[in-house]
């Protein structure tokens, strides 16, 4: 059963100055599904991810061609406010990047600025988000402590909780477990599995097993092009294209 796509890219090209990092990317990201983006280093996975919530706007001299439709609307139209887009499309980075604030304030920072003021709502939000990110039991007694004192795996789950607190529709994750040990990695993978009930997740990973475990769809990229895109099962067992197979089986040269 196919779900409605929540994000669609249509013939997207992306340039850093004169360098073309993405070429003619057309793909649908289905609602409440996990889509994995794989491919060798430098093939443009992060670039594509950051294109979807307009984080590339922060880099000087970049250019986008084509359309990125979020719920049917091109987010690169001049009258679209990137701040509103980023509220709906959250992001988790490769390296955990909590603010140098308390655990509690890391989570309430953005919701407060978005207008949630009452102590009860904020308390509830903190508890809910931390529970969703499977961190609550570990930190419920130290909410006032600096987030910088947490372990790397805990920090990453805090960053996920922080993103969830904004109640986005889509969660973009750029190699969220590459800096973590196997136990933290397993926790985050379980988490992804639970989160797709309520969110659409797009995850970049270098770990083939991870892509196979957590995603329904997989896209394989090479040199800025989308080589093959389809059901994860198909991509991993019976890809149509030789390059995909070589990459997945580790015979890529």
């Amino acid at each position, binding site marked *: 059963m196919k779900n409605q796509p929540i994000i669609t890219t249509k013939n997207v090209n992306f340039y850093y100055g004169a360098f073309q990092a993405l070429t003619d990317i057309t793909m649908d990201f289905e609602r409440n599904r996990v889509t994995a983006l794989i491919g060798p280093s430098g093939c443009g996975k992060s670039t594509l991810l950051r294109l979807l*919530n307009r*984080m590339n706007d*922060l880099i*000087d001299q970049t250019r986008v061609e084509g359309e990125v439709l979020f719920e049917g609307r091109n987010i690169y139209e001049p009258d679209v406010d990137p*701040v*509103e*887009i*980023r*509220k*709906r499309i*959250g*992001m988790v*980075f490769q*390296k955990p*990047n*909590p*603010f*140098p604030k308390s655990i509690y304030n890391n989570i309430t*920072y*953005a919701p407060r*600025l*978005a207008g949630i003021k009452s102590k009860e709502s904020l308390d509830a939000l903190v508890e809910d988000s931390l529970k969703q990110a499977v961190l609550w039991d570990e930190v419920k007694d130290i909410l006032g402590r*600096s987030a*910088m*004192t947490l372990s790397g795996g805990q920090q990453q789950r805090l*960053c996920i909780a*922080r*993103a969830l607190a*904004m109640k986005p529709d889509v969660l973009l994750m750029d190699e969220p477990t590459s800096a973590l040990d196997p136990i933290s990695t397993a926790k985050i993978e379980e988490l992804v599995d639970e989160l797709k009930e309520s969110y659409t997740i797009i995850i970049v990973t270098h770990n083939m097993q991870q892509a196979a475990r957590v995603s329904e769809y997989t896209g394989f990229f090479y040199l800025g092009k989308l080589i093959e895109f389809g059901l994860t099962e198909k991509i991993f067992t019976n890809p149509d294209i030789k390059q995909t197979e070589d990459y997945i089986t580790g015979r890529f040269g």
Partner: protein
Amino acid sequence: MNEQSLMKRRYLKQRAFFLIVRLSALVITLALVGILFFLFYNGLGAISWDFLTLPPTDSMTKGGIMPAIVGTFYLTIGAIIVALPLGVASAIYLTEYAKQGKLIRVIRVAVNCLAGVPSVVFGLFGLGFFVVFLRFGSSILSGALTLGILILPTIIGASEEALKAVPQTFREASLALGVSKWATISRIVIPSAVPGILTGSILGIGRAAGETAPIMFTAAAFFTAVLPKSVFNEVMALPYHIYVLATAGTHIEQTRPIQYGTALVLIALVLGIDLVAIVIRSVIRRKKRW
């Protein structure tokens, strides 16, 4: 030439180089220690409670330097009130908003030039612009504005460094949550940069407190026993007081101890301020964990 003598030559060269470097560092340290020792030796005798709390008397050959201490205090605080907001705002514009380009380069060059302008030129500018053109007269206001412009490059430089030192990941984390750019800067970037901005600014204060030329025509009084009542009053100031006693009086030899005493107070003030900066920085460094 065989391998061994080559190695030996290289080794000797290296030794000689280190020696030169070490000697240079030693010379600088000795110069500082020498100046301090000289000032203490000549000035300590003049320092007393009365010296710090009474105005000068008997044509400034006796009494204390209290009005000059107070004047320098006001001028310095005034300079900071002028330069800190302006400097920090400029630094925010330069690092956070402006796209790298021609305009930015022009502004940077302007700031650097400002830093290189001799302080007497600031004094003349202050005289022409604040004292005469804006009719502020010779006053705390004119002096503070002039000193403020003088230390502006220091504050901009320090603030830019501090803002650049804030990890880019903090900005990205905040923006990715759908927080606006201004909120990101004011809630995340500036608080993280405050320690750096403060240390840099305190070093600027040290400079403002010690300058003579910029206040000579804009704020400093030769002598006044009364303390200022408003920002439009003239004040005595420590560096100018030294200058006056050492050059313009009729009792230059007689007031030598007072000159050294005043210099000692001034340098203690400036070093004290620098010390505060160093302490703040080391405390923050220990707390910082990114």
